[in-house]
């Protein structure tokens, strides 16, 4: 196995593979960094260019896009507070505050290095444990998926600083949004009031951009003309701070358990089809906070938050690659495009793929591993330029970002419908921010809504007994974990409130 991997690495290190890999990673980082451009869209743009290449070169390019895109999202997340891709939602929680505190470089490099180490750690699992780990994914039936999604939502609802209730409400709003439109099983129109506009439902990406980008930029803009007419502490005009790569790496390796656990969370979510990086980064972030000795520092620019989110979303990629390598079943849209590329070249995917095509299989492993140093080089080259964003005046930056968001939303389906959805949810997001609602639970509810419903219906169609959700061991365990997660969040809130009350007696 090691010799196969060594062969793969030597093979990929040839220019004809290294060049597409590098180009793919570069495009991935850029695509990931642009809010409104997802990794899926980027990989679809890259696909036609790979037709002429030999299969492995094309797959290497796509692997590069996947790895680069999973990292690129953190740039916008840290610098603008807008997730560049859905997988970097949790990076905004601490990356943006850290950047605002005058350390954008530290925030970004913590993220990039955490991505590198999380991704490479994930590669270890990918190369040595693909078979057994992918087998776990098959054990997940509709009951397990349903319970897992309940756990994910319980976790994210508990993340909010202010109130658990508002977190849960926000999740519920997200779920409700997905109910609008035609239902995913019988295509029955719901809450459409006979309107064409509502009938199409609210596609996820315009809502995400609307809620995050619009609401974020609007709150930034209103602070510009604050009471004293002074720009509040923001990124505007911040001088680049000094930081060292060694220091950043020390910060990460001082917390080996955090790195390892975030990687494992990302990996497991990646193996399970149809969930994706957004859920994994949020879940890893939640875990980091629950295990942390200083949970109260999260949300204010705590390095642990950035490490957890970014390590897990890159490990997520290795998880997604596992299902396609082990069974030829794509776990998400990006691996589906990769599978399509194999089909085009007449490569039969399936459980025998690794043994029948060891050159390509180990080539993909090698490309995945080598994509990380490529990504690092690209980030080192780009970052001085990217960090300049922090010195651009908000009056210039805001319109540019807004235009990019609108164009991104429009380009999804080339319809104005998405732009209107974006506008509508920009307003809704802004109102929710003003009322003190956290937005991440809403987004997770939105991402998982359809899947929760589909799996619930499947479970009931297979067997009407509701007890199966509790008596099937994995499903039952996940539901217990969900209950514990909420209980722990309540306990942490109470403890935090008590501590605040003790610390500030002179109020």
């Amino acid at each position, binding site marked *: 196995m090691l010799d196969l991997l060594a062969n793969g690495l030597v093979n990929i290190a040839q220019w004809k593979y290294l060049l597409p890999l590098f180009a793919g990673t570069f495009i991935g980082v850029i695509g990931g960094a642009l809010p409104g451009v997802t990794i899926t869209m980027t990989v*679809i743009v890259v*696909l*036609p260019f790979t*037709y002429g290449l030999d299969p492995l070169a094309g797959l290497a390019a796509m692997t590069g896009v996947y790895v680069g895109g999973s990292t690129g999202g953190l740039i916008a997340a840290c610098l603008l507070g807008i997730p560049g891709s859905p997988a970097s939602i949790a990076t905004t929680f601490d990356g943006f505050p850290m950047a605002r505190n005058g350390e954008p470089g530290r925030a970004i490099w913590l993220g990039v290095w955490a991505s590198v180490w999380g991704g490479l750690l994930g590669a270890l699992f990918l190369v040595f444990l693909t078979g057994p780990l992918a087998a776990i*994914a*098959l*054990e*997940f*039936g*509709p009951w397990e998926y349903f319970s897992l999604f309940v756990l994910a939502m319980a976790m994210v609802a508990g993340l909010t600083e202010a109130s658990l209730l508002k977190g849960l409400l926000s999740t519920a709003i997200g779920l409700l949004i997905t109910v609008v439109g*035609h*239902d*995913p*099983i*019988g*295509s029955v129109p719901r809450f459409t009031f006979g309107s064409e506009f509502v009938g*199409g439902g609210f596609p996820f990406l315009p809502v995400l951009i609307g809620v995050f980008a619009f609401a974020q930029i609007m709150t930034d803009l209103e602070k510009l003309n604050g009471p004293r007419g002074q720009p509040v502490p923001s990124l505007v005009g911040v001088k680049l701070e000094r930081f060292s790569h060694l220091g950043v790496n020390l910060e990460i390796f001082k917390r080996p358990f955090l790195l390892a656990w975030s990687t494992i969370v990302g990996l497991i979510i990646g193996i399970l*089809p*149809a969930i994706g990086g957004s859920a994994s980064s949020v879940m890893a972030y939640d875990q980091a906070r629950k295990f942390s000795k200083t949970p109260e520092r999260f949300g204010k620019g705590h390095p642990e938050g950035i490490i957890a989110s970014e390590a897990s979303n890159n490990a997520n990629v290795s998880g997604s690659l596992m299902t396609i390598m082990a*069974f*030829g*079943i*794509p776990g998400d*849209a990006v691996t*589906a*495009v990769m*599978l*399509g590329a194999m*089909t*085009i070249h*007449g490569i*039969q*995917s*399936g*459980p*025998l*793929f690794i043994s029948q095509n060891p050159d390509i299989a180990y080539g993909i492993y090698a490309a995945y591993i080598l994509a990380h140093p490529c990504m690092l080089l690209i980030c080192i080259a780009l970052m001085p330029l990217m960090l300049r964003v922090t010195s651009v005046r908000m009056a210039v930056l805001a319109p540019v970002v807004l235009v990019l968001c609108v164009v991104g939303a429009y380009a999804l*389906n*080339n319809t104005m419908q998405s732009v209107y959805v974006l506008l509508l949810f920009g307003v809704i997001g802004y109102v929710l921010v003003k009322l003190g609602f956290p937005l991440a639970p809403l987004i997770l509810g939105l991402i998982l809504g*359809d899947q929760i419903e*589909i799996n619930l*219906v*499947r479970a009931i*169609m*297979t067997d009407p007994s509701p007890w199966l959700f509790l008596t099937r061991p994995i499903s039952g365990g996940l539901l217990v974990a969900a209950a514990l997660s909420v209980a722990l969040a309540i306990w942490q809130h109470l403890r935090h409130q008590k501590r605040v009350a003790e610390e500030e007696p002179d109020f």
Partner: protein
Amino acid sequence: MARTFVTMAGVAALAGVLAALSGPAMAQYPDRPIKMIVPWAAGGDTDNIFRPFAVEFQKHLGQPVVIANVGGASGTVGAREAQKSAPDGYTVYAMHDYIHLTFYAGISDVKYSDFEPVCLVAATPSVLTASAKTPWKTWQELADDAKKRPGEITVGATLGSTSHIFPAMIEKAAGIKFKFVSYDGLAPRMNALLGGHINLTDSNLTQKGKVEAAVLRFIAIASEKRDPEAPDVPTLKELGMNIVYEVARGVMVPKGTPAPVRAKLEEACAKAVKEPSFAQAMKLQGTRVAYLSAIDYAQFLARIDGESKTIMTDLGLIKK
């Protein structure tokens, strides 16, 4: 001097933008990428058939053909999106026989006649497929078990679509009763079948790799004769059931697409299906290349629509 240069560059850039903007009015169709809506999840059989097709198709169109997987609600979400797209030839719809069935099942009001046919591309015989976690090695064992436990054997299916109708025809022919569970698209069904969360499903020879790896079993194929790609799999006819069931896949465009545009698409399609690499890709997918021109495809669609109505009435699934 530097300023003049900047101004000149600005003028040049502006001229470029204007040329780009005024371009489409004069240019020949197609002058930008074409979106192909595949109404199923990526990695399924429809996807696996149209991806190699798109490669050849774009070669003869001279513009990239980008596949958009718009899944959900038994393929009707993609159908609805295709129906509502601008009839300008920049959105094409990768369709299969489900469109007739979902209409008669009352799942969707989108009809095949909401589109203009371009060409028929391929036909794939359905194969009744069992999870390796089930005990049945042959059809007889399955049928005996099904008679003992009516309504207990689970079949993953896209409700109201071909993967629902095909097992339903077997139910009727063999006098047995299955329990249907909603799994849209072949890729999610395969996941569930491998995990043993469903017992049976409709698939096809695209899944041959998994049979060779012994993680699932082909029980019977719905073709006239045994397929050379899978000579061990008996036909339903051999087993005494008069069922031949193929899923035919073709390309359609929204109604109102101009005739010259359709002619261009049809011409490219006719050339694409003749490419040897496409034939090779289809062979691997257990699919036969079945080209029909727009006129013939229109007749074919009308015939299948009538047959679908009859089948749905027979099975008691008809809603309109």
